[in-house]
Every structure is written in structure tokens, then in C-alpha cells.
């Protein structure tokens, strides 16, 4: 974890209202793993004040060295400012932070489930699982076609299933139906999306009597990302309290909902 300035190498609206911002990677980011996140600071003043948490959505080798990308929808002042950065601009970040995905060794069939912008960390995970020679099936869901990450931008080895609530692309409905079908196939599952999606996935797995590990990457309101502000509390059903930033953001869904 370090505080650093990164130079923007590319800013692009990738699909729908979703932006990708590419930045030059500092050396220390080479240790990051899929599912870890960064705090990005918008603006040059104290307003807006706090960082925004973004998972790393992809890494690549640019002409000037390694780069990392963040993927986001413009939802407020911070993301609006970030969406207007251009090549050569600087953005201050802190990271890498948190506990990322932990794919088991020597298992082959990986199921990745993303809801809305929750697709972001799953792209890098899919890239790295494919690079390791594993089988990857992705289920991506959204309200409508414009929210679905373009298939053409995924590794060709990835098997893709799409659901939209309005039926504009893929199956009509939510990610839970294909998840239920594919759960028996997979060795391990990974998910990122809104909180109700996690609980729905947990229930599907429980009702199917499945014991397979499902790693969920939680999103939460954070002020620091460092484990010191205590904003991002999550309350497991069995009791206690955890912090998304340092205990997670990756949790086994059973640890939260059982």
C-alpha cells in the first residue's frame, strides 16, 4: 500500500455510460491481485474531500510500461471528475488495498458472476484465470443491454452468459437463473455486484445443497479504505462486525449470510 500519483494514459467511454480510465502503474502495484482495490482522489482541492474505491479492472502493457485500468459509471462529482481526465493528467491514488479473490490451486472450472458495474474486478480475474489455462464461464447481468460489458472485449476463451432485466440482450431476468444452472458445473465461484445479488446467490447455493465456495467482492461506502475510519461495516448474520476494506472486500458468502 502506497500513496502515489499516476499519469492517465487513456480515458475512454467503453460502453453505455461506463468509463475506463487507464493509468501508468507504479512498480509496487505489481504485487496486486484481482479483487484488490485503490482509493482514487478526485479534484485538486478539499472538495470533494474523500477518495473513491475502485477495484482494478484490468492490467496491460502500454508503450511506456505497465498500466492498470479502473472501470466506473458516472454517479456523482468524484466519478464525473475522473471521467474528464485526459492523457497526461495526474490522479492521486492509494493502494493496492484489501483482500482480493483467492482462486484455489489445482481446480479448473471457474464461474464468475457480475451484476452491473460489479463486472469490473471480474474482468481482470477472468484474464488471469484464462492465462493460467483454466476454464472460465462468466454470467453478466444488468437492467439493460447498455450495462453489459461487451463480449468482444473479453478473452475469447471465456464462455459468456448474459441476462438483462428488460430482455434487450441475452436471457430475460437476473443472474440467479444461469448461476443455478452452472453451479453444479463449476469448482469455484466468484461474484461481484449489489448486496441483494450476493444474498440471492447464497440462497441459490444453499437451497441446491451446494458446498462450493462462493467468493463475493463487496462494495461499501468508505472514507479511507485503510481500516481506520470504520465506515464500511458489514454485519454477518451470525453476529459480529467486519470491515469491507481490510477484512474484505472478498468474503466467502457463507461467512456473511449463513
Amino acid at each position, binding site marked *: 500500500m502506497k500513496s502515489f500519483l499516476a499519469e492517465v494514459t487513456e480515458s475512454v467511454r467503453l460502453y453505455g455510460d461506463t468509463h475506463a480510465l487507464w493509468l501508468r502503474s507504479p512498480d509496487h502495484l505489481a504485487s496486486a491481485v484481482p479483487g484488490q482495490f485503490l482509493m482514487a482522489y478526485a479534484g485538486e*482541492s478539499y472538495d470533494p474531500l474523500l477518495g473513491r474505491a475502485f477495484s482494478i479492472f484490468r492490467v496491460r502493457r502500454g508503450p511506456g510500461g505497465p498500466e492498470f485500468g479502473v472501470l466506473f459509471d458516472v454517479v456523482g462529482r468524484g466519478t464525473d471528475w475522473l471521467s474528464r481526465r485526459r492523457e497526461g493528467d495526474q490522479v492521486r491514488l492509494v493502494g493496492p488495498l484489501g483482500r482480493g479473490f483467492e482462486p484455489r490451486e489445482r481446480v479448473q472450472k471457474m464461474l464468475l458472476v457480475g451484476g452491473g458495474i460489479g463486472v469490473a474486478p471480474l474482468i481482470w480475474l477472468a484474464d488471469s484465470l484464462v492465462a493460467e489455462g483454466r476454464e472460465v464461464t462468466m454470467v453478466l447481468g444488468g437492467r439493460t443491454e447498455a450495462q453489459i460489458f461487451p463480449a468482444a472485449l473479453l478473452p475469447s476463451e471465456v464462455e459468456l452468459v448474459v441476462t438483462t432485466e428488460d430482455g434487450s440482450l441475452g436471457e430475460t431476468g437476473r443472474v440467479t437463473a444461469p448461476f443455478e444452472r452452472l453451479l453444479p458445473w463449476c469448482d469455484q465461484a466468484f461474484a461481484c455486484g449489489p448486496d441483494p445479488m450476493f444474498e440471492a446467490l447464497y440462497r441459490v447455493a444453499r437451497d441446491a445443497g451446494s458446498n462450493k465456495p462462493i467468493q463475493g467482492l463487496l462494495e461499501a461506502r468508505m472514507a479511507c479504505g485503510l481500516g481506520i475510519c470504520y465506515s464500511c461495516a*458489514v454485519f454477518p448474520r451470525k453476529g459480529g462486525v467486519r470491515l469491507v476494506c481490510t477484512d474484505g472486500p472478498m468474503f466467502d458468502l457463507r461467512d456473511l449470510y449463513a
Partner: protein
Amino acid sequence: MDLTVNLAPHHKTELRLRNPIMTASGTFSNGLELAKYHDVDALGAIVSKGTTLRPRRGNATPRTAETAAGMLNSIGFQNIGVSALIKTIAPVWERWDVPAIVNIMGETLDEYGTLAARLEGVPGVAGLEVNVSCPNVEAGGLEFGQVPEQAAAVVREVAAHSTLPMLVKLTPSVSDIRPIAMAVEAAGAQALTVTNTIPAMAIDVRTRRPVLSTGSGGLSGPAVKPIAMRNVYLASSVVDIPVVASGGAMTGLDVVEFVMAGATAVQVGTATFLDPAAPWSILAEFEAWCAAEGVTCVDEIRGVARRRD
């Protein structure tokens, strides 16, 4: 240059800081998180998360909200409780050089006394910071710190059970901070922390409800600095004990301002959320300013803004 300060100059156990930069309670957890990345021993002192008699899970989320140049928080004193702190945290502090001060909060007078007694003689604990911004459930719900007599009663209760140096963290939610400051000094506090967060609220126009789960929370960050500045100025003009400033310090120059207003030390709080290196960079900026201005000790500039020449 010698930037050491003493927060308990007349107490049997002094509280010497190698420099005036402290962390603010609730913005540094118990120190272990950032100690992995930075040298805590370079700081003047650290202050623990608000610690209660029993562990607390804290409030429902949302617990924080961003506001103009500031933030609201309503964490609800999520903490591991004093027993776990003594067992798991204090032994780590004992290995550190930096003085570790435990911020304590009770709901009754008795709880304050019990907390002080539990922390008495615990290796690794260098002092107490008493949070009096908590409703007195036995006396109508006004905060202890809003009534001079009740604030003084807390100080006497803690002093009766503890030989540790005691800072008392005052609330800004009073019409005049001076009577409280004087009452707390007279009751035997070694120093004042000025001040806690300012009660405030933000509304979510989409849900048409307050953003925070509890409705209101405490405002902190650069937005509150001028308010803290005035309270430091006022409090330090009526007491002889050290005043520790807390409220929106983001830079070394902010520290200079607080010292000129009368502060002996300055706590860095919200700034650490924006940059985990903030306490250290603020210290470096303060040292650089002192060097550039030929200031060789904190007392040279302490309270100069109050002088009427």
C-alpha cells in the same frame, strides 16, 4: 531545533511528546494498521479508537457522508472493548516508543471510573483522553461535556481511579467553551483536547431521508478548522494547562496556526483518511516551517496570536 512538548508538566507522570503531532481518536484505529507502513515512533503521540467498557458493534450503515470540504461520521463507537484492548493492543504499544493514549467513553460516571481503573498500571498505556461528548443517561441526556459541573465530575471520577495523565476532549456543542475548560482544569485534568466533531446532518434528496443511518453525525475535516481555531484560542486564554487542537488540520501550516492560537500539540484526524502518510507529512511540513522561520521550540510561537502588543 527541539520540538518536544509536555502535555502533563505538573503531573507526577509527565507526558512528553517528541513533537506536537498526534493522531486523533477514531482516525487511526489503534495504530496497528498504519504502523505496518509508517514509523509510528516518529510521531508525538497516538490516540486510540474510542474505547468502552464492553465491545460495541457500532451503528448501522451508512456511517459516513461526504460534505463540502468535510465529512460526517456516526460510527457508533465500534470498538473491541477495554479488556481486548488491554490484552491484544497494549502489549504492541509497549514495544513502541511513541506514547499511546487511550480514548475512553462511558455512559455513566461509574463507567468512566471503571475504565480508568482497568487501564491503571497497564504497560504500554501512557495516558487517557476522556471523551465527554456522550449523553449522561442518568441526568436527562445532555452530554457530560455540555455542563461544567458534570464534566468536572467525570474528571474527578477518572482521577480517583488513575494516576495516568488525563486529557479531556471537549465538545464544541456549547455556547461558550471557556466555563467548561476552566471547570475541567479545576477538577484536575492535565490537558484539554479542543474539540470533538460538530453535530451536523446531510439529506439524500433521492431517498428524502438523512444520509446517515442515525440521522445526524459529527462534522470533521477542513470545513471545521476555523471553528476549532476559535475554540483553541478561547480555551487556551483561560487555562494554564496545555491545549491540544483537534479539527481539520491538513497541513503543516494548519499546525502552525493552531499553535499560534494557543495549542501545545495538534491532532491529525480526517487528513489521514485522505492520505495514510498525512501525520508524517504534516510533521515534516511543520518542521520545515520552523526551520525556515528560525523557530527552535514550540513555545516560541505558542499563543502568539493572542498577544495584544
